[in-house]
């Protein structure tokens, strides 16, 4: 609970000041605040003003039992010796739309593409949402969602529904038995 960042507390919008807390241990100790999804741009702008210039990453966590996606924005400050702030927000799973922050933090542009292709989250105002890492390699639904069984989809799409068996190529092996017996 000690070493609270006073500058961050000052700059945060008033309604979130009580919610700022200090959590974690070891290398993961950080300030944390949970915000409403519609305020995410406003909050991140204030955090940038408070000196947290780098976006480390955006973690998306899927909670199908609660019907939400949780987005965790990790921000760090070089001037403050690598101090970490995590901004958490929750959006509905049925309508996963949130404002983009790619104009505030340049790296968010690519992190948001990743969140789009792996979780299907739409970022309003982002001009380049597309398949990037999975381009030409994945035809199923966003694979990191919890209700998507990638193993089943891969078997159906690429292995003809059979487990660990390519239907055409392996037949010759079956007909001839194992390598040693035929001799």
């Amino acid at each position, binding site marked *: 609970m000690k070493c609270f960042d006073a500058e961050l507390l000052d700059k945060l919008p008033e309604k979130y000041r009580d919610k700022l807390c200090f959590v974690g241990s*070891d290398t993961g100790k950080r300030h944390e605040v949970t915000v409403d999804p519609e305020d995410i741009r406003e909050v991140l702008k204030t955090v940038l003003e408070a000196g947290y210039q780098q976006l480390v990453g955006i973690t998306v966590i899927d909670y199908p039992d609660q019907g939400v996606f949780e987005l965790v924005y990790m921000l760090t400050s070089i001037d403050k010796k690598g101090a970490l702030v995590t901004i958490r927000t929750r959006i509905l799973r049925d309508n996963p739309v949130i404002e983009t922050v790619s104009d505030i933090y340049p790296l968010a542009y690519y*992190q948001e593409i990743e969140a789009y292709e792996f979780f299907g989250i739409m970022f309003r105002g982002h001009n380049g949402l597309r398949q990037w890492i999975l381009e030409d390699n994945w035809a199923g639904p966003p694979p990191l969602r919890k209700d998507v069984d990638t193993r089943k989809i891969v078997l159906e799409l690429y292995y003809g529904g059979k487990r660990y068996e390519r239907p055409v190529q392996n037949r010759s092996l079956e007909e001839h038995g194992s390598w040693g017996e035929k001799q």
Partner: protein
Amino acid sequence: MNKTVTVFLGPQHPGAPGNVSFKVVLDGEQVIDIDLIPGFLHRGFEKMMEYRRWDMDLVMSARICVEDPDHVELTYTHAVEQIFGIEPPEKAKYIRVIVAEFSRIASHLLWLMHFAGPIAARYAVGWAIAAREEVLKWFDYITGHRIYHHYIFPGGVRWNIPSDFKEKTLKVLKTIEPLVKDIEVGFFKHPVFQKRAMGLGRLKPTEAIRLGATGPTLRGSGICHDLRKTLGYDAYTELEFKIPRGEYGDAYDRAMIRINEIYESMNIIRQALEKMPMDGPYRWRLPMVMPEGEGIGRVESARGEFVAHIINYRGNQIGRRSLAPYRIKFRGPTMPLLTTILKYIVKNEDITIADLPVLIGSFDPCPPDIDR
């Protein structure tokens, strides 16, 4: 005639930095725009880890970055230890530091091969690989594996160290030090290399921070930032070391930082060997079931900040006692280097296609940590 040509660089091109491709827009020889095409090594690790036990995930995590696997294990280990709420034994902390620093040396030496090769300095390639071979032999001796070690383990390290650990380690350092010195004199002070790298790809400190640079790229721009020092994880608080930094933020500075870091790593290893307790436990045994919780592991890897974010949540699975973590996210240092920073430099500076291998090589990218 003002016609632009689009050229693909990689992934099979020998000058490409690993398993990525670039879409390069050219006007004559001049590079106007560059776009990254990742995904050639996407293995879906984050999803696969959700199907496996947390101790199996450690073995997988090492595969994320081939060149520097121990730092990925270390981030994963830090995150898991935060969820369990434990501290490793004192002895394990020192062993971790030594293993991580050797991993950094091996990674920087492999980078030298990737970097010197496209500039056609074949001699440096051979020397770097010869020096790395000694480090790999040391890894084989201490962990039983050459490339992926799975040695750093939640709760400590996997095995105890052998009795002749100190002598053997010092002998390895003694063998590689002259080789590294040779490389420094023969390659880094070579006028041809200096001519190609000096003044190329300058990155101002403010821009480096804004675009998300970490590690040697950030320090090359003159910013003294190192998570080993600022966070002081494991035994780094007990050890004294300098943080090398550059002045101009060009490709030459970024390269020189890595060679200085090799010397600094050797210094750290020698100190750690002296201060290390030789007896005491090396690992706490952990229960099979990971408690609910969240952990963020951050370490300074050879390329910059590596983050593992693990969330363990049971929710509606209560009673099933799932042994797999609910969600793991890895953040590698390469994504900003090859996307935002490369684009920024190409847009703001005259870069020809012949400069590209030097420029991209000076970032020391490890594309697998974009794909994962």
